[in-house]
């Protein structure tokens, strides 16, 4: 972007500045540290100048919003057209209680739903399973059958909201339930919009709610891709997630690298299953973390967009530009929330949310101040939502597209993160791709090393966490935390008992045995899962049927 002559002059002048002006100051008042780093340990110079971005070609590397390589954003007008979707992840207790919270959030100006399921649901156990003890309704809503799903969306017109569901191993089943509920509302599946997380690879790496081994899991995922491309065309069939990888301790570079490496594995699996890349790739979506280092995070989002566009175009020969667009949801970093002085978390979340918006996110969840302690109360969630609304309506950062572009530092960091992520992806390719790298524990080990280093930096005081290792105060334990009604487990057990007595058990048995037979073939399982769901077969029964055929994943443990 600069001619050779001016670059030479800048270089000379910079040298002079360092040897005179800076030297004098540093002699009198040394800098705080010898070396400085981003939140993810990329070394940071004192000053960035055109010298650091001299290899960037504006047209090829940055381009224009809505056009390849999408560095500056995936839409031509970004937030001048429409703000990001404000989508608070919520769900707890029974379907009735969660339904009430959703209606409250919609009435407060939230623009999309995001369903949190409890752990038994995520791992495919009914509420009356022995392993479900103590877990029912705790971290999300308990869904045992279509009956619960009908209650969950009661009075919410499914053709008018978009719904994101954080569900992975049993994603096909919950999607089938959603389609069945819509059908009962008179809404056909081609009108549904929303997302299922459906990203099993990161479950093995970082989040832990896996059920089946990798191979049948990948098959279920490609079955969903194929089914949705025909019947639910507006559905985001997967949300390839770096969020949990980052939460587990990864750096920004590792977050981008491992997420895109997993993305590559899904694309390869779908192509191998006979799908055309431009048929399913436009429905792939991503999910990233927004951490504390504001500028590094903005650069991370831009780097991820550019890198994915190149991968899809060059590696997979996609032709449809929509296949090259990295569309993503963002959540602020839960692991940065502190139990100490919880109101400080509002400020952290504001900075993180700002990073997501400056990075061009398509939707956003802001965490609540009390989430290091418990699930958030209604008051806390409202403040978190208001944080997004203040950024949208008052901060002014939404009025022009990608406002930080052209900053020497931002462009340098965007470039650096992209290069370092690419190096990781090459390494993973050498190991045989993401599933193999995960099997060998490669990603897990890299993440654990980063997590340990992060903790050691806090212990040594090199990394300051306000209120935790500096500026501590004596404080009263916080009051008014949300308590999940301990009766939920009993309520769900009773519901299950009633359901099993009331439904047509022969129809259930038939549907399940057809599913079992089909699971042994190569057929797409979605239609058969949909049939099971409609007979009110429970989530646990459907998963057990598949467990019989597929077996269960056993993790290798390292630390």
């Amino acid at each position: 972007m600069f001619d050779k002559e001016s670059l030479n002059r800048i270089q000379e002048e910079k040298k002079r500045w360092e040897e005179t002006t800076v030297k004098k100051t540093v002699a009198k008042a040394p800098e705080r540290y010898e070396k400085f780093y981003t939140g993810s340990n990329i070394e940071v110079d004192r000053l960035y100048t055109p010298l650091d971005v001299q290899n960037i070609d504006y047209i090829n590397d940055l381009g224009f919003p809505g056009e390849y390589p999408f560095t500056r954003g995936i839409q031509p007008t970004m937030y001048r057209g429409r703000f990001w979707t404000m989508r608070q992840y919520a769900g707890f207790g029974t379907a009735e209680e969660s339904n009430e919270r959703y209606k409250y959030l919609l009435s407060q100006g939230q623009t999309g739903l995001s369903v949190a399921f409890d752990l038994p649901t995520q791992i495919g156990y009914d509420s009356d399973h022995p392993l479900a003890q103590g877990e029912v309704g705790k971290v999300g809503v308990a869904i045992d059958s279509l009956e619960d799903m009908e209650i969950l969306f009661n009075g919410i017109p499914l053709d008018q909201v978009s719904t994101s569901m954080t569900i992975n191993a049993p994603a096909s089943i919950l999607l089938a339930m959603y389609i069945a509920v819509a059908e009962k509302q008179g809404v056909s599946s081609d009108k549904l919009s929303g997302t299922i997380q459906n990203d099993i690879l990161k479950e093995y790496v970082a989040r832990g709610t896996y059920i089946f081994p990798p191979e049948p899991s990948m098959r279920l995922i490609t079955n969903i891709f194929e089914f949705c491309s025909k019947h639910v065309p507006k559905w985001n069939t997967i949300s390839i997630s770096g969020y949990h990888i980052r939460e587990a301790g990864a750096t920004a570079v590792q977050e981008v690298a491992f997420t895109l490496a997993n993305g590559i594995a899904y694309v390869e699996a779908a192509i191998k299953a006979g799908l055309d890349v431009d048929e399913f790739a436009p429905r792939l979506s991503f999910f990233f973390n927004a951490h504390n280092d504001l500028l590094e995070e903005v650069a991370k989002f831009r780097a991820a967009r550019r890198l994915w566009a190149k991968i899809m175009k060059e590696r997979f020969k996609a032709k449809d530009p929509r296949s090259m667009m990295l569309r993503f949801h963002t959540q602020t970093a839960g692991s940065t929330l502190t139990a100490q002085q919880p109101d400080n978390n509002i400020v952290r979340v504001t900075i993180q949310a700002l990073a997501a918006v400056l990075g061009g996110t398509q939707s956003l969840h802001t965490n609540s101040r009390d989430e290091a302690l418990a699930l958030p109360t209604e008051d806390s969630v409202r403040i978190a939502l208001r944080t997004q609304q203040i950024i949208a309506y008052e901060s002014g950062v939404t009025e022009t597209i990608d406002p930080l572009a052209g900053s020497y530092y931002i462009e340098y960091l965007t470039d650096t993160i992209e290069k370092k992520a690419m190096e990781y992806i090459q390494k993973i390719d050498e190991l045989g791709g993401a599933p193999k790298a995960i099997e060998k524990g490669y990603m897990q080990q890299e993440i654990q090393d980063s997590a340990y280093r992060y903790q050691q930096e806090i212990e040594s005081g090199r990394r300051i966490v306000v209120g935790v290792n500096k500026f501590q105060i004596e404080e009263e334990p916080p009051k008014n935390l949300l308590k999940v009604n301990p009766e939920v487990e009993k309520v769900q057990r009773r519901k299950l008992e009633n359901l099993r007595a009331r439904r047509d058990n022969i129809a259930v048995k038939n549907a399940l045995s057809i599913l079992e037979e089909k699971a042994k073939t190569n057929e797409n399982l979605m239609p058969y899962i949909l049939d099971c769901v409609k007979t009110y077969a429970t989530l646990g029964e459907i998963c057990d049927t598949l467990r019989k055929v597929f077996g269960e994943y056993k993790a290798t443990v390292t630390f």
Partner: protein
Amino acid sequence: MESTKTIRVLIAKPGLDGHDRGAKVIARALRDAGMEVIYTGLRQTPEQIVEAAIQEDVDVIGLSILSGAHNVLFPRIMELLKEKGAQDILVIGGGVIPHDDIPFLKQCGIAEIFTPGTPISTIVEFIKNNVRI
């Protein structure tokens, strides 16, 4: 007098949540502090945890949970330890555990609950001062 026997620790994840960043960081830090550490991996039932503790002859069990099921699972683990005559094992816990729940958990025999933000040195000190070997 400081004992010369190496302290053996079982880090365990009861319940269904998959968040084991904390468990792994603690496991590694205790190992770096000179202890012998075994980590169970995810989704361990109280029965599995107690059995592993006895089989591995550990002096300390560190329970990590973020799912909110602590009030059900921690007491069950303490009950099983008592049944097996293994009450001398020091049991500590950590994770997302509301302050109000801590007195009940201590009543059940958990020696200490460490909430987010606790320096690892505090945990190492606590183990060294309270372990019964």
